[in-house]
């Protein structure tokens, strides 16, 4: 019989996300992308991404200055962002989203090895998605009935 509820699957996120270092990571518009805090300056953040399919990567400040750590291999921010993406979404989802061969890219290092050079793209859109994400925490709570949430169990 047809079901109104989602297929049951065991809950992800047994491990807690490190939001202090990586406050935001998402799988969006063909990229695993996110925002990484600077280790030295509390006011500065880095915007990093890996592109699905090509596995090109890039990292810059939110003011579009390229990250000093970028080179032939992904910088520290990119590796931190990837690691948190795996924590939040699970490795299978990340590998599938990046369109990588599952048998070769079955671990954090396995994914990193697939990285293939830089592609440059402005940080603005990711940063504004980050702000919109944080905005969710600024809305007031509600005490009105929301029967519609009956579709979203557990």
């Amino acid at each position: 019989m047809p079901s109104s509820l989602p297929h049951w699957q065991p809950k992800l996120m047994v491990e807690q996300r490190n939001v202090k270092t990586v406050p935001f990571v998402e799988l969006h518009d063909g990229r695993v992308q996110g925002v990484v805090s600077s280790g030295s300056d509390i006011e500065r953040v880095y915007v990093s991404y890996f592109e699905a399919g090509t596995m090109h990567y890039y990292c810059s400040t939110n003011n579009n200055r390229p990250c000093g750590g970028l080179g032939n291999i992904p910088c520290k921010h990119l590796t931190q962002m990837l690691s948190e993406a795996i924590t939040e979404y699970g490795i299978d989802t990340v590998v599938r989203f990046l369109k990588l061969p599952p048998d070769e890219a079955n671990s954090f290092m396995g994914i990193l090895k697939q990285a293939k050079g830089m592609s440059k793209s402005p940080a603005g859109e990711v940063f504004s998605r980050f702000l919109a994400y944080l905005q969710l925490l600024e809305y007031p709570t509600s005490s009105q009935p929301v029967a519609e949430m009956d579709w979203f169990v557990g």
Partner: protein
Amino acid sequence: MMDASISETDRFLAALDACWLAGFAQLAPEHRQTLAKLQHIFEGTPLGQPLQNAVEQLRRGVYQPEHFRVLAAARASLQGAQYAHLRQAAEALVKRASAPSPTPSALDAPTAPPPLLNGAAQWLADLAITGFSRLDARDVSAFDATLRQMRGSPDLLPLVAVLAGLSQSLIGAVPVADPASAPVFRWVDLWSRALIMTVQAPPSPVTQPTDGLLHLMGVEWRSQPQLVSAVFYGILTEGDAVRWVRVTLSAHKVSAIGGDETWLLLPQSQQLLQALDSGQTFQLARMPLTPTGDLLWDDGLATTGAPYKVMDIARRCLLPGAATPIEVAPPLPEYRHPIHLAVPVALDGYQVSEDNTLTAGDITLPLDIRRIAGTELDPQHLRQRPHMVGIVRYDDGQFWLQPLAAADKKGRLDFIGEGGLKLFTKPPKNSTVAILQERASRLLREKK
């Protein structure tokens, strides 16, 4: 026990939903036959003429949201009929006399919907035209900006819940690799409810103040990546009236927040969790109550009162065939959908089998593990607890039991949210919630 028409309707709806999978711009002859059958079912009813017109317009390629809305209304009314049968059957199962159905609330003449609602209706129409099996991520995310704006209006929260949930479920599934295993029924359920809700701005709830005494009975947790909602169920006594009531608390959230920490987004829940844990009643003072049994919680209108034992009250009012009649208000007509079926029951001295089926006397129900696995009410805990309060639900062709709270022989209570209460009592130094909230207030204020 269960009416045969229930499964017949389920099968028909599954066939009908194939239209949404294929897309209304690409309907095959078998889809048109199913639509003709739908028309036939409604012939001679108030929906008959509008439905004939809508199907005809869609056949001609006039894909207006209002035509799709008639299909949504027809689908919802078949599910409304299912709801009525299911409610009777579930009440017979727990040996409770059926409450008389209230007369449907007179609908106000629809006022013009705000532009945001039109935007949502257009997106829903676009999904149906393209078909779930042909969607790509861009079709889904095209709606992100409108949805973000809608989140800013507290009145639209119920609609936001459906739209955000549908969008989230689709984005994780498109492009659909295997249409046969896609949760199409669920998608069309959400699509239909959302499209019906876009017809007009939500009416404000009708309420009456209550001065009753509230005994909380348990908690249900519902969540999406960007929205969570806790429902506290309780028994409200006021004079001779004994009512089954709900308190709902909801908050927007971000996907990085998970587990017990999510409770920290609902600060008002601390008082309720505490009262449930320590078995303290709430004396209400003019707390708004809707005819559907929803208390609009305002902690300024509740003071903690005398102690009580959850299972004592539950057994008196909710055991199958209990002597004390309890009033379980039916939902508003537009909410008569099997997903909203929730018939409370208390059970004693039951067995829970290896395959998570509960047997208590002549009542046998599978436990709905989707709602309890890994929580404070995991089946392995329930096997050690002889007393339970729960809700009879329906999905997937059968009734399910959703536990809300369970107690051991000494009356010690287990309920979902105990982990959250621990965090409230002893707040962690660096919670994900606190770090992100601090970040939000710094970055978003800075911008202004």
